[in-house]
């Protein structure tokens, strides 16, 4: 019989985070700094996110521009004022499925899906941990990521994604809450819409 997973128990020292259990939902806020080659200042944005393990990730950018991005294994859908403006099935762009695996993996602490494509190095310092991911193959044009560095303690706190061309995103996560209540109706609608 499997032991019940309790919140706040950090038994798995190797991964640093307790992987989310089925039925749990992770919510929080984020701040993103996007450094782009050719632009003097980074693009700053902030908003909130909801991760429903096994279903998908809802990423709501609020400033400076309100847009909702929903990522599922099937692909990516963006909505602006409840109107779909972008739909990219992962069949059309295989990187999309990796993107979802990466973000949901980083947030939930389940790195397994990334092990086929990345080499993972872990470091620990007391309750803090640091994970570095590097693609196993460097010459794959379908892999736009050079390095991923994740930092956190109980949950993921900071994520840095370096793209192949040197551009990089720095993400800071705040006010994260693990909830056992089911996702809201609006969230389910977004996930359903993006999931097929």
């Amino acid at each position, binding site marked *: 019989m499997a032991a019940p997973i309790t919140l706040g128990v950090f038994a798995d020292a190797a991964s640093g985070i307790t992987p989310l259990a089925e039925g749990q939902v992770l919510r929080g806020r984020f701040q993103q700094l996007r450094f782009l080659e*050719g632009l003097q200042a980074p*693009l700053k944005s902030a908003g909130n996110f909801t991760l429903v393990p096994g279903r998908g990730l809802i990423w709501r950018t609020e400033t400076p521009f309100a847009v909702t991005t929903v990522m599922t294994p099937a692909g990516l859908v963006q909505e602006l004022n409840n109107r779909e403006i972008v739909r990219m099935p992962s069949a059309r762009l295989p990187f999309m499925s990796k993107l979802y695996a990466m973000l949901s993996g980083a947030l939930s602490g389940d790195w397994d899906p990334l092990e086929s494509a990345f080499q993972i190095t872990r470091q620990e310092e007391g309750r803090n941990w640091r994970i570095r991911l590097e693609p196993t193959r460097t010459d794959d044009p379908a892999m736009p990521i050079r390095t991923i560095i994740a930092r956190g303690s109980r949950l993921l706190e900071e994520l840095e994604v370096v793209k192949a061309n040197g551009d990089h995103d720095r993400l800071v996560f705040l006010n994260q809450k693990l909830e056992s209540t089911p996702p809201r109706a609006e969230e389910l609608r977004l996930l359903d819409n993006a999931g097929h």
Partner: protein
Amino acid sequence: MRSLFAAAWVAVVAVAAAYLAVRVHDGLPLRTDLLALLPSEDQDAAVQRATDAVSRQLARRVVFLVGGESRVQARAAAARLAADIEATGLLVPVTRGLDADQLKRLGSLYGPYRRGLLAEADRDLLIAGRGEEVADKALAQMFGVGGIADGNLLRIDPFLLLPSFFSALPFPLSRLKLDDGMLTLDDDHKVWVAVVGLVVGEPFALDLQEKIVRAFDTSAAALQDATPGLEIKRLGAVFFAEAGSSTAIREASTLSTISMVGTIALIVGMFRRIRPLLHNLLVVGIGIVAALAGSLAWFGNLHVAALLFGTSLIGVAFDYGLYYSSTMFDPADGTPRERLRRIMPGIVLGSLTTMLGYAALALAPFPGLRQIAVFSVIGLVAAFATVVLLLPALDRKQTVAHAPLLLGAMKWAHAFWDGERWRRVRALLLITAVAITAAGFARFRADNDVRHMQSLSPALLREQEDIQRLIGTTVATQFLLVEAGDDETALRREETVVRPLLDRLETSGAISGAQTPAAFIPSAARQRDNQTLMRTALDVPFLARQRSVLGMEAVDTPTSTPDETLSLKDALASEAVPLLRELVLGPGLHVVTFQGLTDPDAVRTMFAGIAGVRFIDPTADLSALLDKYQYRAVLLTALSALLMFLGLARRYGWKGSGWVMLPPVTAICLGSAMLILIGQPFNFFHAMALVLLLSVTSDYAIFCAESPAYQRQVTLLAVSLAALTTLLSFGLLAASRVPAVFSFGSTMLVGILLAFFLAPLATRGKPSLSERSAHPTADPCNVGRLVR
């Protein structure tokens, strides 16, 4: 006098043979293209060129899927297979995904002209005055997760219109992904790696097909030996063609061996000497030489279909020689010349009616039928002349001792049709025949679908289905042909006329996608229109806001001058756009290809009556051509029969002519009905067999009708021999597994058997002497009377 004629004929044959030798030495001008078979008003060089180009493109494509337990295993095997195949020099490998290199080339081609390039969806939004949505979409990409954000691109293209244009380019979707230089796909059990190749050279060449198949088989066997569990699947027209032709060749050599050995055994066995065999070979040989020489002189070239059918039709001449040889069995002894004189009326009338029948083929406006008609009439005249002029000279007076037994059997056959004893049986047969014919005709159904006339290898079909299931939709053989005076006009038509209709077809599910040249390179007019749209609907209202949200200073001005447009010619020359070269056949001659075509009829209907745009379905077009030929051939067979009946009526009277025509007409009608009843839909090859059947079987009837009572058994014996040899040559084709050949063969088999069985009935038609003396000049048999 007679030997003078013979010598003159030998001279004519020698001239024909010499002429033929010269032509063959220069390379026999045989045509194989279907265009040559079309009525001249239907001939269209552009359609033919497009069909050739597209079918050649499709036929050149070869796909192998290598399935392994692991990625490493599959990749290693695929690399080995690719290397083995490439080493033959017959295939070049291609990657169909867009690799980094290709993307770079696309970028540098389109980059300078980006102000004129808009994805259809963006263009629609701008036209509708919804430019803000386009701007928002770009911002959403920049601030959302994982957007394809590129700072340098953003500076010159703040609305990200070029990436949008790129992702809307209609490259055929497939489930294959580029994984480290190899097209890969995971299914539940295996990792599949695709090796895509193009055949170098003529994909329809038989020896090339054989070499490719052998190279593949060797390589695949070695790989599978080394790695148990490895699966290798293949897809490509060359494999089907090779399998088809190797089956056909194997089958043809078996059938022709049986036919040849059987015929020789039959003739030598019957006559117990070799001379009749040689005589008959000479008759047919001279017929074919003369027909070839005459047709080449007449037409300048010859279609291979005419050669094949014509040669079959000349085969009838074999019967005249046989008839002559059979006079050996005649108890009434005579010199070769006397024996010829006895059968002369029969073969004169027989060959005249046959020629009449063949000549009727020339009445149709179909070049193919016309060539067959000329070819076979010349061949028949030559064969006839050889029988009449040469055979008696080559023959010696001889009789055959074993005749009585055979002749006795023939006597019984006549008794069946004439004797009072069999009256009831005959009546029963008549009722049955009428019933079967009526039932068969009621169920008449024509099917000239070419796909039903080929026998495709079931194993290859299974592999094809597997591959299509694994990699997704494939390019259809059907396409649209856009014809215009120049490229610009063609591109505009694709944008304004074709695209909206394609959208409707995609919505209805008739197609899943399509590639128009204009989707890759918009017309100059459209590019200028896009430039204006971008300025008025996007730059003026939203550029300042866009830059401020993105935190960019207003700096860069567009690098290309607004009037510059990308031309199709330059795009083709750059070789940067995959597929484009396959879509543009020439200036103003464009092809639109389809993916996932499920409803060809819907596409045909949608584009019917659209000027300058045609839906081309090569398979359906060929089927339609065969349909037309079949219809004509049936009509002409009926017309021939009518002409024969009228001609014969002059000699036999109406009633007599009816009796003579009864066996051939019954063979045709009843035979066809029987085949329909056993489930064979009627097709072109049945119809062509009917043409041959009518002439062959009318000869049997005429031989019987013309023979005086005392000679009937000898005549029927000759007819039996003729029927047996025809069964051995054409009837045997009913054993073929190639549906087209089977159709021809089964018609001959059933028809010949029926006509042979019914032939004695024709003796009821007797030459009416009063008719002959009343109109000596109009007598179709005056040649016969000369020698009588």
